[in-house]
């Protein structure tokens, strides 16, 4: 038999265990070229960002959110007026109007920053009050969402991961909280919580309560008590699916503890859902905050909030309608852009969550 024949025989019989020598030769330059990646592999995150970028409405919403953040958090630092400084003699100025003393100063050659939205009945610059109101509303929205994220994801992940009786008990509790009419309880708590909080603020070490304001804290408490249930439900159902994946089994086999698996594997894999739900929680918290402030249960004077500004503007609606329009427009833009941003993030990172 010749060598040529032998080779032919090998290729014919697929069951043969004989190794081909050719397979072990060094690869040629051509073959090496074929293995080189033509495209970067796309990670989940990159893929989401790419999808997000293509969504024009979502990008516009993102830009709007960034602009609002700048207006609310950065601009007041450089603004020539302060939100609580009462300027004598410049009460109830119309937009762009100057008071007499300011006119004198202008005549003397000084440059005076105009009151873009006029001043209120106490002589406070209204534009900065609207900006500060936006800051308060945004802070409440973001902090409340962070609280919801923290409690909801932990609770949901624990219930979903351990399952069984624990899950049953934990979820019954969630069911009950879910059917509690939250706004009623919020109003109830907001109107009563300030007494225990005020007495707590007298104690040493708790003076920070007074700086933040008891109303603000009671609002956060309420969000922390009631608003996390939706998040907990979503995270639980995700975790219940994820915990059956191979990498969880692998992590268990390698001896990872329950806490590590939840933190490192399950919650990190829910990240899309977490981002989307948290983003959509922000406008709904701002909604509730402005509602409470409108009722007079929100942040305390002289600190403005968009809701309390709108409420105060009601009395002079006929003469100063812009005092209502400015905070109203601000609330509208904030809620709208956060809603659209959340929708865009959902479409990009979590298409399954639609509906």
């Amino acid at each position: 038999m010749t060598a040529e024949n032998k080779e032919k025989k090998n290729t014919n019989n697929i069951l043969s265990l004989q190794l081909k020598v050719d397979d072990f030769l060094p690869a040629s330059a051509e073959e090496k070229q074929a293995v080189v990646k033509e495209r970067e592999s796309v990670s989940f995150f990159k893929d989401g960002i790419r999808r997000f970028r293509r969504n024009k409405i979502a990008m516009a919403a993102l830009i709007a959110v960034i602009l609002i953040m700048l207006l609310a958090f950065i601009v007041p630092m450089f603004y020539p007026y302060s939100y609580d400084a009462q300027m004598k003699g410049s009460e109830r100025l119309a937009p762009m109007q100057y008071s007499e003393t300011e006119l004198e100063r202008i005549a003397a050659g000084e440059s005076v920053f105009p009151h873009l939205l006029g001043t209120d009945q106490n002589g406070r610059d209204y534009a900065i009050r609207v900006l500060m109101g936006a800051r308060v509303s945004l802070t409440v929205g973001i902090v409340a969402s962070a609280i919801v994220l923290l409690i909801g994801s932990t609770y949901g992940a624990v219930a979903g991961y351990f399952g069984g009786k624990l899950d049953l008990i934990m979820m019954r509790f969630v069911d009950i909280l879910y059917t509690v009419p939250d706004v009623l309880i919020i109003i109830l708590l907001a109107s009563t919580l300030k007494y225990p909080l005020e007495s707590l603020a007298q104690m040493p070490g708790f003076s920070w309560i007074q700086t933040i304001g008891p109303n603000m804290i009671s609002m956060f408490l309420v969000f922390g008590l009631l608003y996390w249930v939706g998040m907990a439900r979503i995270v639980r159902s995700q975790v219940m699916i994820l915990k059956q994946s191979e990498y969880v089994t692998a992590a268990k086999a390698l001896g990872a503890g329950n806490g590590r698996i939840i933190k490192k594997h399950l919650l990190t894999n829910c990240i899309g859902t977490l981002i989307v739900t948290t983003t959509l929680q922000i406008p709904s918290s701002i909604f509730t905050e402005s509602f409470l402030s409108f009722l007079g249960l929100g942040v305390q004077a002289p600190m403005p909030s968009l809701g309390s500004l709108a409420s105060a503007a009601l009395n002079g609606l006929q003469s100063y309608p812009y005092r209502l329009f400015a905070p109203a427009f601000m609330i509208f833009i904030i809620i709208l852009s956060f809603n659209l941003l959340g929708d865009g993030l959902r479409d990009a990172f979590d298409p399954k969550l639609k509906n």
Partner: protein
Amino acid sequence: MGKYITKRILLALVTAFVVASATFFIMNMVPGGPFLGEKAVTPAAQEALEAKFGLDKPLSEQYTTYMNDLLHGDLGPSLKKRGRTVNDIIATKFPVSAKLGGMAILIAFFVGVPLGSYAAFHRGKLIDNIIILFSTAGIAIPSFLSSTLLMYFLSAQWGLLPSKGLNSPACYIMPVIALALHPTSYIARLMRSSMLDVMGQDYMRTARAKGVSQVKSIFKHALRNAILPVVTYLGPLTAQLMTGSFIIEKIFVIPGLGSEFVGAITSRDYPLIMGTTIFLAMFIITLNVIVDILYAVIDPRIKLK
């Protein structure tokens, strides 16, 4: 089905108990208890008042008395309105709010559902985009803003509609629109996405393929399935309308339970706040149970769960 309904009712009872207890303990955080408020009174008067409202007894005993009264439907006296009980106030004010809320629900449902379906049928066209635009904007406006803006333009500026009270049918227009704007937009969005979902299902194609007309397939197959998410939303919606009406009633000076509640918050009439909260909470919980049962009737698949 029976098991499902029993479970729902049991859950509602537990929720009602939790809400009632929570209300009691939250109200006890007020210095002096809900019947005294934080106002300083002379020690003798304080004692007399405490004895009158049973506040001198231990908390556990107060709690059982309170729960017992509650089971008998007694919500106690009002603190600020002399000689009137909370029951009395609710009985006269609630029908006004319920009428307003009912009208808003009807509008939200019968405007939102067709609007959402229409947008879904004309997906990607101009009309779809217009409906999306308006419903997205409608969701972003809190009810207190829509109502104040309506009042400013329709009443103060153009003088088309009366701005307060409920004396003529025209008075209902603005409050109902303000109340219905948010839920209508929400239902339209919900309906649009669920209708698009249903239209893509195999059974819709099958229905068309076997010769069912377009109109008939929409009404008999698509609408019935697509409306389910809207039905589940009706429960939370009633809760939302009840609370939304607090502010709207205050703004339009409507003598309903909502403005009474807001007034009670500002005047710190704690028994009235407590009673109204419990009454509205029970109302919402009951409606939620009804909606859940209704849902099971409309969607036979739910029985399996």
